[in-house]
């Protein structure tokens, strides 16, 4: 069967690649085992999970938002055909490598594409927004079906589908209790928290968790390292800029404007791209709920307006609220929305491949804020609104 | 003589309601009745006979099942619109007034609704009529009190004043004396009688106050369960036995001679009574309560003779002798003890 073939290939690959360990792969912190060397990975940017490598199994911790060990979820990734180790009663056991899984978020699809395992996706929370060509083909062929999101989860369908894993998103309502039925039926459920990462590289680094599930650490390590290198060099490039044009993000709704706080994902991007951000010094990784009025002074004078929302043209902006026309960014036309890479069904790839390619996002942003630094770059995810 | 103008007349009127499936359920009728100016008419009948339904039909609140009503000679439907009727008929109903925040004055002032200005402004004329209505019902003293603060009797008078303020030739009242104490009941009936006479209004009211109705009404309408209505001057109805037969059906005995209902029946023993004054009248009532059938003196085994006066004296003559009492309670005690 195809699955087994993959498994044996992967096994062979890991055995061979062990001989070519590069400096990037640090040895596993546990017992040094030279009988079955394999490729491991180190987490450097992400704060939401850790992986401990052992013989024939990997111990994954998914930490809560604060990064400490309370409310941590444990997962035992056990190589198929090997026994489950003792001593981890609370951990969920996931036999790896998984050959099929169900994904609940766009980023999961993006991660799967990153390491070339998109065809293993047999189920999706919603079929409405998909960019990956492989997955779209599978949907059309009926190989990938819709299983429902959150409260809508179709348990019976999932149980009959019996994927190797369900990759869900953790949020305050989705505790493991919600998935109990499925876990009892023998389907492991892992609750990811990549969306809680506040740094671009940290968020992208969650590909390594998926890599651990399919034993593709080697491939992912290489790819991710190249992502990091590109990203870092871009940061270096942007730091040469003499000016830091001011940026505002998002759009108010009825007098309330949710502005990303100083330690948030977008705030990091702005800083790395050499932009100025009024709320750069505020604490918090989420958004600040501000009054439109409080943001107005900055919005009126900011140079650039990014990630504007569900708009495509300038007139979409003014039809939402004619007052936006007074923003300087509006009159100078420096309006850039992150929905350039949207496909025919209205799905925005920013959330899929964009999430695992922060270096491309950064390049886009630098080319917007400091066009002279990246003259040849064509924006992939951002488009200027006309 | 009063010009007895016909204010309302009906022909073959059937009052009732429609069941859920639209089937007509007749309650009263067919009736052909009239109300004339200056008349006070009391509508009597057992509970459930349909007095309220009839009143609502006559006043236009409810459509009739059959027949016609003509109010002051109106011919076209436009003249039967609520606005037109409002100047012809005013009502006092049993509906509770929930908004107890209104002052008595404001409530009475509402009676001027059909005449007041576009936004409800009151003219001098309106104020005069309101003042008159309040004076007639004697409620000036609590004009500024809230309805919720008034007693039942007082608020009923306020509703009456409101109807008076509406200044219509016809007035219809649905049990205006219910829940009132006796003095208030009498006051209201007196007032209505006076209104009919003085203002030549045609007044129709339904009531359970048989005693008062007999005294005050110019005409009685007796509605029986089943829809039949007998009408006439009260005394005629009593004398020709109609009154008795209507209530007889309900198992209640009306005594023509006294004009009241006998609670007590099934006499067990006879006793003779001699005397013809006030004291004798009341002695007879007491004896009847005790279960005696009272006959003329000399017929029964025992006799009582009443001597009238400021302090009446009762003399009881039995087979065992004579006794004298200076109070009824003494007499009654003796009767009980001697188990006569």
């Amino acid at each position, binding site marked *: 069967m195809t699955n087994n073939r993959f498994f044996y290939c992967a096994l062979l690959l890991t055995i061979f690649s062990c001989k070519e360990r590069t400096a990037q792969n640090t040895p596993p912190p546990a017992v040094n085992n030279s009988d079955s060397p394999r490729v491991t990975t180190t987490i450097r940017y992400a704060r939401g999970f850790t992986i401990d490598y052992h013989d024939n199994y990997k111990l994954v911790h998914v930490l809560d938002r604060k990064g400490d060990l309370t409310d941590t979820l444990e997962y035992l990734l056990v190589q198929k055909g090997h026994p489950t180790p003792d001593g981890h009663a609370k951990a969920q056991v996931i036999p790896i490598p998984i050959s099929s899984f169900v994904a609940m978020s766009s980023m999961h699809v993006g991660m799967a594409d990153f390491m070339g395992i998109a065809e293993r996706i047999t189920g999706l929370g919603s079929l409405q927004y998909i960019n990956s060509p492989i997955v779209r083909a599978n949907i059309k062929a009926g190989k990938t079906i819709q299983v429902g999101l959150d409260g809508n989860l179709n348990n019976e369908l999932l149980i009959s589908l019996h994927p190797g894993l369900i990759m869900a998103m953790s949020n305050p309502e989705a505790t493991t209790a919600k998935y109990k039925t499925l876990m009892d039926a023998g389907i492991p459920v892992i609750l990811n928290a990549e969306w809680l990462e506040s740094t671009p590289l940290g968020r992208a680094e969650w590909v390594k968790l998926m890599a651990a599930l399919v034993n593709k650490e080697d491939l992912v390590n290489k790819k991710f390292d190249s992502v990091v290198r590109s990203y870092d060099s871009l940061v270096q490039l942007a730091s040469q800029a003499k000016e830091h044009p001011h940026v505002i993000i998002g759009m108010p709704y*009825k007098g309330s404007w949710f502005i990303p706080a100083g330690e948030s994902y977008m705030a990091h991007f702005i800083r790395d791209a050499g932009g100025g951000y009024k709320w750069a010094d505020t604490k918090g990784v989420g958004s600040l709920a501000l009054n*439109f009025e409080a943001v107005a002074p900055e919005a009126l*004078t900011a140079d650039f307006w990014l990630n504007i929302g569900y708009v495509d043209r300038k007139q979409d902006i003014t039809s939402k609220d004619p007052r936006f026309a007074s923003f300087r960014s509006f009159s100078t036309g420096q309006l850039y929305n992150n929905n350039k890479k949207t496909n025919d069904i209205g799905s925005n790839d920013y959330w899929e491949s964009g999430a695992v390619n922060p270096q491309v996002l950064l390049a886009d942003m630098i080319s917007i804020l400091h066009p002279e630094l990246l003259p040849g770059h064509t924006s992939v995810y951002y488009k200027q609104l006309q | 003589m009063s010009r007895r103008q016909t204010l309302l007349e009906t022909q073959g009127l059937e009052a009732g309601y429609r069941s859920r499936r639209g089937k007509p359920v007749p309650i009263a009728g067919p009736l052909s009745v009239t109300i004339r100016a200056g008349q006070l008419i009391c509508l009597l009948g057992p509970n459930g006979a349909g007095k309220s339904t009839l009143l609502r039909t006559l*006043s236009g609140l409810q459509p009739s099942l059959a027949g016609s009503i003509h109010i002051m000679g109106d011919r076209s439907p436009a003249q039967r*619109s609520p606005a037109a009727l409002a100047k012809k008929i005013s009502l006092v*109903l049993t509906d509770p007034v929930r*908004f107890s925040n209104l002052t008595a004055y404001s409530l009475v002032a509402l009676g001027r*609704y059909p005449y007041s200005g576009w936004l409800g402004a009151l003219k001098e004329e309106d104020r005069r009529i309101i003042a008159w209505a309040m004076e007639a019902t004697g409620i000036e003293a609590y004009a500024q009190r809230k309805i919720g603060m008034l007693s039942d009797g007082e608020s009923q008078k306020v509703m009456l004043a409101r109807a008076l303020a509406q200044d219509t030739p016809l007035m219809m009242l649905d049990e205006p004396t219910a829940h009132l104490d006796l003095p208030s009941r009498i006051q209201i009936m007196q007032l209505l009688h006076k209104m009919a006479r003085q203002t030549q209004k045609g007044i129709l009211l339904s009531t359970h106050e048989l005693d008062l109705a007999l005294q005050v009404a110019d005409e009685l309408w007796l509605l029986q369960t089943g829809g039949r209505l007998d009408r006439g001057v009260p005394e005629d109805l009593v004398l020709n036995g109609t009154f008795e037969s209507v209530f007889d059906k309900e198992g209640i005995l009306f005594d023509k001679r006294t004009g009241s209902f006998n609670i007590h029946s099934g006499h067990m023993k006879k006793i003779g009574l001699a005397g013809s004054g006030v004291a004798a009248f009341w002695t007879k009532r007491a004896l009847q309560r005790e279960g005696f059938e009272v006959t003329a003196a000399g017929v029964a085994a025992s006799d009582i003779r009443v001597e009238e006066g400021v302090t009446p004296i009762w003399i009881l003559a039995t087979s065992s002798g004579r006794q004298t009492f200076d109070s009824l309670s003494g007499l009654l005690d003796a009767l009980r003890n001697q188990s006569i």
Partner: protein
Amino acid sequence: MQLTNNQRKRKDIKLAALCLLLIGAFFLDIALGPVRIPLRSICRIILSLPGGDSTWQYIVMQIRIPKTFTAVIAGCGLSVSGLQMQTLFRNPLAEPAVLGVTAGASLGVAAVMLAGGSITTLYTIRELGLSGSWLITIAGCTGAAGVMLLVILISKAVKDNIMMLIIGVMVGTVTLSIISIWQYFSDPELIKDYLMWTFGSLGGVTGAQLYVLGLATFLGLVISFLSSKMLDALLLGENYARSMGVTTQRARLIIICSTSLLAGSITAFCGPIGFIGIAVPQMARSVFATSNHRVLIPACCLIGTTLMLLCDVIGQLPGSQAALPINIVTALVGAPTVIWMILRKNNLSIFG
């Protein structure tokens, strides 16, 4: 009885005091906000004097003044529609929010958005320009009228006041549940926006939308005022009203029209705002000591506007950057008022 001279003087003093309070609240609402703008600058901007910071100009003219006007409109509209409902149902606790009418307005708006828009639900309200504003208003008013009709039909069968309120709450709940079904099947991102909408906001109404809202409310208020006499008659109940010349069908129709115009349009633009409709008519009745609608309707406008402006001022949490949604403030102010009213018992005919 005519008012004595003393009583009239007292009434005039009350009126004058209220007007002063209104003007004060109006200026307070314009003067306060997360950005500190000195009073002098505000005056200059309002009087269109040249010079001065353009950012402040923008804030005062484009953000604060429209919001203040929205507060005025909402204050008038909600209190008068509450007054009318209290009269029609002869229930001192009736108001559009309690009897589900605002829920009906939300439903109307949601329905239109679903039928018309590509992206689901109420999120897209703000997308619409002038023609869209009219569409929203009509949808909101239709929804409000529909629910009100339903409630009136039910009220024929239910005589008890308290039962009526409970039924109103139930109708409102059913309506909101229908909206929830739509939400449930729509994008998770939009749910947050709907949540924001339910909190109520006076800040989102600008330009063309403000004109449409103002017009609809004005129309509703005019209809209301012209039917003052009829409303007075209805206080005694429909039988008495009819005997005084009120055609009950027409009366109900007129009240439905004006209440749906008022509650429907305000809800469509500002989200569901409650408690103003209960509290203000009660205050108006107490302060002006009358049940005459000719006096009460303007009184409700006066008091309602003042109260709404004050709630908006409180909601801005002067001194901080964040703001409380208006619905929360009106609830915090209104609910204790209602409890106090019930405890006082005097004005409540439920117990009378």
